[in-house]
């Protein structure tokens, strides 16, 4: 892969004023503020009401590209462009969007960037958990005021959902299927009638144009609450797949490791492409249960071995190299990380990993160092 093709995207210098650069992780609209600004400046296409960018500009923001004035937009999602187009078109038709997929297939990442591109605000976020109650999707009360002054709009604590409705922005619901079914169904009225009734005050909040919901859910979760068909009907579903090709996956890992390394200010050099290729190869082979050359059948471990985990292994290796090594990432630096991410079940996965090491890694040309490093850890 030609590194020069990959645009250098952001530096913390482009942060919105007033934001401290000591923040661990910046929100998408902060980190890529100058890209959004530039896109908005040249965007002359019709925008749906209350959208910051036109659908086409939003597409460019997500998928990257070169603007007419020569400005390079970095790709945020590497993969099937058509999926992003479906997602944006869905939001443009004011249908809610459900991003479905295995853990670590960039669902939340896409959702955050869609919200950043379309509403300029990715913070209206509801994290779905089993313990979530209705107030998180509707509104709560400031009980001190409620007791002192009685029910009033001032005593009401709006949820991110309600604020999104009032301001005509995108609300994000993460891990949608972990929310219990009763609470999920609260969304039905919001989605079909675009209103949120407040019976205590005998009033309703009516959604402003531009309001919509992006929900994410993973389909390998245990204890998932299936969406009711009434709710499912109000969502367009986009399934995000695991990266199709080895090259695509390597690009994703490399790009993210680079970004994260800079965000965490790791002093190490970013790992060589060759090391990233090895990590991704190991992950892909174990995930698919067959070697890349299609010659050897393998057992698959119990974990999903997502791209996100590959990124974290590479990142971890970078930290190891920076703090305990000479700053150059070698097999020994990520051996522990890769072993830890594969062995989720101490018995079954250990066998899988050992077999893989003995039958594949040991035999492969130039992989001896990885084999030795991993055997030391085990």
């Amino acid at each position: 892969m030609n590194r020069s093709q990959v645009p250098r995207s952001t530096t913390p210098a482009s942060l919105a004023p007033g934001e401290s650069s000591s923040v661990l992780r910046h929100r998408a609209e902060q980190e890529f503020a100058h890209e959004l600004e530039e896109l908005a400046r040249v965007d002359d296409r019709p925008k749906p009401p209350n959208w910051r960018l036109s659908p086409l500009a939003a597409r460019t923001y997500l998928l990257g590209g070169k603007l007419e004035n020569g400005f390079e937009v970095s790709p945020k999602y590497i993969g099937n462009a058509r999926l992003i187009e479906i997602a944006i078109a869905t939001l443009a038709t004011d249908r809610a969007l459900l991003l479905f997929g295995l853990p670590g297939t960039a669902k939340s990442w896409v959702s955050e960037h869609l919200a950043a591109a379309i509403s300029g605000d990715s913070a209206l976020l509801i994290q779905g958990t089993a313990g979530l109650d209705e107030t998180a999707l509707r509104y709560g009360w400031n009980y001190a005021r409620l007791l002192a002054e009685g029910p009033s709009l001032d005593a009401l604590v709006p949820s991110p959902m309600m604020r999104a409705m009032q301001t005509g922005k995108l609300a994000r619901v993460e891990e949608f299927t972990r929310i219990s079914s009763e609470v999920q169904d609260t969304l039905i009225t919001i989605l079909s009638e675009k209103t949120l009734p407040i019976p205590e005050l005998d009033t309703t909040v009516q959604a402003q144009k531009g309001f919509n919901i992006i929900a994410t859910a993973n389909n390998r979760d245990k204890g998932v609450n299936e969406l009711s068909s009434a709710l499912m009907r109000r969502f367009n579903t986009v399934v995000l797949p695991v990266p199709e090709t080895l090259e695509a996956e390597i690009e994703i890992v490399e790009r993210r490791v680079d970004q994260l390394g800079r965000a965490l200010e790791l002093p190490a050099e970013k790992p060589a492409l060759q090391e990233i290729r090895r990590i991704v190869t190991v992950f892909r082979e174990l995930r698919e249960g067959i070697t890349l050359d299609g010659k050897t059948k393998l057992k698959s471990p119990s974990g999903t071995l997502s791209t996100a985990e590959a990124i974290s292994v590479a990142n971890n290796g970078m930290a190891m190299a920076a703090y305990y090594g000479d700053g150059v990432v070698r097999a020994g630096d990520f051996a522990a990380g890769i072993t830890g991410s594969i062995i989720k079940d101490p018995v079954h996965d250990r066998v899988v990993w050992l077999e893989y090491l003995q039958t594949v890694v040991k035999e492969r040309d130039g992989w001896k160092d990885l084999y030795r490093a991993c055997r030391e850890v085990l």
Partner: protein
Amino acid sequence: MGVHVFGIRHHGPGCARSLVGALRILRPDIVLIEGPPDADDIVTLLSKDSMKPPVALLLYPPDCPQRAVFYPLAVFSPEWQALRYAQEQHIPARFMDLPQSHRLALESEETNAGEQSPSQDRTPHNPDAAQDSANGLSGEASRIDLQDDPLGVLSLLAGYSDRELWWEQQVEQRQDPSGLFEAIMEAMIELRAHATVSLQHEAQREASMRQTIRATQKEGFDKIAVICGAWHAPVLANFSSSKADAALLKGLPKTKVIATWIPWTYSRLASRSGYGAGVTSPGWYHHLWASPDRAPVRWAIYAARLLRGEDLDASSAAVIETVRLADALAALRALPMPGLQEMNEALLAVLCGGDPGPLRLIRDRLEVGDQLGTVPDETPTVPLQRDLEAQQRRLRLPPTSEIKTLDLDLRKDKDRARSRLLHQLQHLGIPWGQPQPVSRKSGTFHELWQLRWQVEFVVALIEASMWGNTVESAASAAVQSRADQAQHLAELTALVDSAVLAGLPAAIDHVLNRLQAQAAVSADVQHLMDALPALARVARYGDVRQTPTGHVVPILDGLFERIVIGLPGACASLDEEAAGRMMNRIGSVQESVDLLDNAHQRQAWQQVLQQLLANDSTAGLIRGRCCRLLLEQRVIDAQELQSQARLQLSPAVPPLQAAAWIEGLLFGSGLMLLHQDPLWNALDGWLGGLAAEAFIELLPVLRRAFAGFQPPERRSMTEKVKRLTAGICQRAETSGVNAPSSAAPETLGVDRERADRVLPVLAQVLGVKLVGHPNHGK
């Protein structure tokens, strides 16, 4: 004046529509079409009402029908529309390509040359030629691919990654056809100026097209409409000297070619079915052709109706949202209207809820479709095909491309005739019907078939016509020839079996003669045993089908005698695997004996089985099986069984062999174990007496023996175990008689000595007298 060239894409509905419009304006007095002139004679058949696309032109050399070439045409093919137009306007329509009589001849010359000099590389365009002719009209795209893909270059220049998509959007989806063909022509002139030099056979084809145009001009036609693949358009529009072309076409080899129309299907037209680059979505194209206005809306509704038909949720609200999303996607991609991809993506996201399963259904049923064309009766065919069509009409079995199930009652004359026909076609390599297993209750008089007509059967019919001119005589000849080549007895008997099913008396006689000759020299008992069941079926059931099977019985008797003589020897010293196979064979011979119901044979067979049982060198598995078979026929009784069991399970017999005996004995059904208490006890005693190591070693074999049983059988076994052990304990308590099996209390986990100590007190409490207790006397 003169020649108007229309460059088209084969099977492009947009092209077809634009072409029809352009022809209406031009009003030509003759239409020339890129296609094989060998088929000029049968173009008139188009005027018949019963000619319904999809159909294909089929051209084949009569001496070698396997090399047949197809030119499929659908209603949305520009060529089809041009032919239709000509026929409506009563103007002539002709094909102008290089005749297949030359192309097939050239091709076979090249193949021969390749075979003669294998050291040399085959000419580079050879595989290309083969592919092109196999694909017919639809082969164009792939050929252009091979020539550096000029269209791909064009679409890449336009910023498309997908060449098909570019053409689709620029040409097929164009609403306003004016200037389209001029633009195509211009683009192609430019492309051809930069393309590499044409291949030899391409040059010949184009020369032939030009020559046809010249000849037409000479005949005095004024306005000539030329319809050809876009790639050829430039060289047909401007040309001068005929000398070079005549030179190119001089001295071409020639072979005899027969042309006919055959029905075609959309699934065959789709490229995935193996006929090369066709149309991936004929159903979609058909839809675009049939309902040009609001095609996306209709498409979504069709999809929803299809899903509802399969009991999947598809509400009108979802259809509305699907169309909206497709429209939004089209707008985002700056398309005039949603194409198939947009529709599919919208259907997946909304109607299918992200699940690709229902989308696959839509792909199969809507996008491809299962439409089957028809051709008029007057279409020239081989006599064999005519015979088949006559039979299909007589038996009311019209060929369809849908999958249909046919339940035949063999006692009825018509059903029997149908069954015969289907079986005969099987012999000719035309699996129109697939025999299905019949559920038990409908008995032996029923046959279940799954019917699905496939268009390539027509070719198979032409191939099969070398056997004969009627289905029956051809099938008969095919069976006889196969019998002559058969090496094994089993093959021959299977042939007898299927020839009986197909009702081919002449073939049966022939195969039986072969069989007798083979059986006499065959030394292998196993082959004889394999051959027996099929023959027995013929002898028993032949009369249901009213087939004369008198010859079978003597052969059957001969086979049986040989088996009886050879079997004991064949059963000696077999390893586990071979014993398993032998056991199955013995089982099937037993079935045949039951089927034939001949007292004499039965007696002989039982004697052999007893002989096997008594012989120590016979494998345990087989002996167990023999024991079972004899028991079922009441040759040995329960007492005999028990003594056999003791014998076979005695400690002197190696445990593995004993276990194999059990497996053979219990094979298939555990009912015997349930109802034969002596056997149960013998088994129990044997199991209880095994050493721990031997038990562990035997466990897999035992498990295998029990694995074949039905769950209810296994359940009643465990219940029996419970009942028996309970009974044993009870008897031990009340009567004080020791348990018949000393193993039972141990299995309950009772420490006998400690339990005994309690008993006197317990007896006192309950007020009963403890009699005959083993410890009582102490």
